[in-house]
């Protein structure tokens, strides 16, 4: 057996107050780093200010980052300080002080992590209940923004999304066009496998499950172009299931709608009855579009 270190070979306990030093360095670092990180990195967070929900997510991410920065600082200070101060001389195998416990530190730690966790969960719930944060909430949403909303059904299929506007006579389009500064109520569903409707700049993501209605809300801001991608693996051409959408001014939206209605009139009789004629608001069929996608 290798040389067995004995308690006698231990160096005399040093009197430096290491704990005090670490705590002071940690507090100093956190006080400087947290605001800096929040201001500098916070602005870079996704998904940007393309919608009320997007703005809210940016705020949310910034708060989370500000909460975790002091935690990172604590570990950084601890390890930089600890690994420099407490390493053994090369080749030496000397026992350290047999500290086995300290209930004050344990309690402090548990209270500290507990407070952080409860704050995070409380804050996240609060933010979620504002307006759903753009996430799919299932058929009976709990976070519903007030006021009137434009309803749009998002129909996923391999490998594209179709958008249906019940308030425009059941009009269907393969591009999502939305009026500015409007509350939109998206009803996401699928005709085959699971897809996920992700409008990145709008901060919206909602899975499309066959036979079910997944509701998400988004409040548009000014005109912009946004990207739509499928975010749930849906088979062979999942990687090509993307498209652009537009947020346009109200006038442009009206003219777009009337133009689309004319195009749509020719095939409308073959589709579901529109709600105006007593049909169901959301279709179970869809307008097939020959899609010539890459690959």
């Amino acid at each position, binding site marked *: *057996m*290798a*040389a*067995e270190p004995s*308690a006698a070979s231990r160096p005399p306990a040093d009197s430096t107050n290491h704990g005090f030093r670490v705590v002071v360095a940690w507090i100093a670092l956190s006080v400087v780093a947290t605001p800096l990180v929040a201001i500098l990195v916070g602005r870079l967070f*996704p*998904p940007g200010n393309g919608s009320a929900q997007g703005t809210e997510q940016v705020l*949310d991410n910034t708060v*989370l980052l500000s909460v975790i920065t002091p*935690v990172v600082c604590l*570990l950084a200070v601890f390890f930089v300080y*600890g*690994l420099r101060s*407490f*390493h*053994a001389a090369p080749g*030496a*195998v*000397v*026992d*350290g*002080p*047999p*500290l*086995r*416990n*300290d209930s004050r*530190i344990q309690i402090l*730690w548990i209270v500290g*992590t507990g407070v952080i966790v409860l704050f*995070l969960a409380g804050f*996240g719930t609060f*933010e*979620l209940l504002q307006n759903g*944060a*753009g*996430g799919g909430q299932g*058929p*009976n949403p*709990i976070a519903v923004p007030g006021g009137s909303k434009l309803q749009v059904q998002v129909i996923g299929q391999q490998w594209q999304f179709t958008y249906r506007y019940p308030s425009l006579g059941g009009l269907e389009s393969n591009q999502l066009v939305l009026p500015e500064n409007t509350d939109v109520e998206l009803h996401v569903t699928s005709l*085959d*496998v*699971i897809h*996920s409707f*992700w409008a*990145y700049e709008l*901060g919206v993501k909602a*899975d499309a499950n066959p*036979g*079910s209605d*997944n*509701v998400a809300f988004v409040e548009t801001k000014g005109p912009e172009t946004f*990207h739509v991608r499928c*975010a*749930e*693996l849906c*088979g062979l051409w999942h*990687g090509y299931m*993307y498209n652009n959408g537009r947020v346009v001014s109200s006038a442009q939206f009206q003219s777009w709608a009337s133009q689309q209605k004319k195009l749509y009139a020719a095939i409308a009789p073959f589709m579901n009855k529109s709600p105006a004629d007593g049909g169901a608001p959301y279709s179970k069929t869809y307008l097939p579009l020959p899609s010539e996608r890459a*690959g």
Partner: protein
Amino acid sequence: MTAVAAPPPRPLWRRLLGFNLLTALVLGVGGWYVGWFGAHAVKGLSIAYFADTDYNELSVVMAYIGGVVGFLVGLGFLNYPIARMRGYPPSLREKETHGWTRYFSLCTDHKVVGIQYLWGIGLFFFIGGLNAMLIRTELLRPNHQVFPAGTYLTIVGMHGTMMMGMMTSGILGPFANYLVPIMIGARRMAFPRIEALTFWLLMAAGTILTSTIFFGGFPTGWTGYAPLSNEGNPGMDNYLLFFALVGISMTLLGLNMIATVLTMRAPGLTWTRLPIFVWGVLSTAVLMVLAAPVLIATLGMEMLDRTAQTTFFVAAGGGSSYLYQNLFWVFGHPEVYILALPGFAIVLELLPVFSRKPLWGYRLAVGGLLGVSLLSWFVWQHHLFVSGINGDLRPFYMLSTELISIPTGFTFLCGMMTLWRGNIRFTVPMLFCLAWFFNFLIGGLSGVFLSDVPSDVTTHGSFFSMAHFHYTIMGGLVFTFFAAIYYWVPKMTGWELNERLGKVHFWTMFIFFNSTFFPLFIAGFEGQPRRVVTYSSHLQFLNDWVSVSAFLLGISMLVFLFNLVWSLAFVKKPAEANPWSSRSIEFQLPSPVPVHNFDRIPVFSSDPYGYGEGPVPTWVAPAGAPAGSE
């Protein structure tokens, strides 16, 4: 070390006949064809597999089931039950075999099984790693370039499935099987044949998953979501059978561990003296036993959907795609803690040795492990925050998910306080443990974003979550897996590993691991979804950086492989019995450990962490005394 008289060696050709891997492979192939043609006879005319349009699901499933049965029979798993039925007395004769051939057959020595696991899992880990390299090759350009789309999905799915399936047993298979009996002062596991069975099942499973490429691969990634899986080629059945077999292996492995720790502890080994590694194994084993059966059942339902046209997961037939997701994650979330917990345990086990201080806050550490395994049952729907399932329960799942960080924090606190004022030695295993703190901190803190519903709306299903789980699994589990290898393999094999190469391996792995996965957080934030062949062209620089780092990470793994083969097969420098001056009991035994572990069953009088508290208690008979007085 052989008190048992070795039988005179027989000629090689004679030894090849009998119950061993060779026979198993022959019977496995035979069983495969029996299943294949048998199912065709039942189901219809098509005898040959020509194309997607003319296949017979049932025959693929039955072929593989037949193959597995043949394989196990060939290894000799039926011999013992048959002998018992014919009235022979119970025995552990398989344990007495000698020489290298025992590594290629059913062996009930827990130390042999541990080493079999190490190499077996290593092999499939290597295949999974090669897949990762192929993924990164494809992602060098924003457009689809090297592989056809279906092949790419198969590669991603095979990488993920292989890694998840194999690495769940990554620590428990090699290290717990080898060490738990020794650490608790026993001579074997509670069920030695079941122990061997778990290993060979895993090998059969790995072969099945690899052979998916002959059946068109599978499009679903490692999650196998229905109804997409209903559309898949016959290769999908390989996924289902792989994971179901892994599930069976996990359940048995867990049961065996629990039974062993509960019933076979040596005198004096009270619950508060149990090494923390054993606590980690126990809490993982409980999760395995409770979670894996859910997986087996779920995959069984999916197999029925595919072969017998049931509609468990088909909305049009009254089923639901949510049902699959729900069941999968009921298994899937405990599963990720099955991957994380052994890592915690290894870190806590090794830190006292290399900072030469007792494990700080033993009870808190145990509480942390058990707390994580308890809470991991209440969080699974955080994988489904935007799916529309139970929208009103999201605040609850947000809270429960974040609560897990409290017991996880115990591991951090106990580990850090163990380092505090210690005499830290920066050996190779210690470096890997210290890296765990860094990696798991990033993994855990990125989890804070994913567990927060508003933030998760953007990060869900993106490369952000991909980076997150690689930080926890690769940074958390695989790093500690290597720590365990450098720490225990000299004990297990009796040969030293090269330290300089070990350090090269560590530093390259640490640096390139971070430079591979950290940028992926940004890619995710910028909107790159998982599992796609195409991405927005402004992300190309980031992706190229990641790919190059990943290749260098691959090379770092080759350094390790070289070290392993070089040190164990060529240099063969004998390892000391206790190279780390550890107080743990396995290091009081000779290297490698003799067949029967102990001459006398040890009597424990303390935990193994009494650094600075006097000399090591004499638990065991002096090393080198003849073993085998069972």
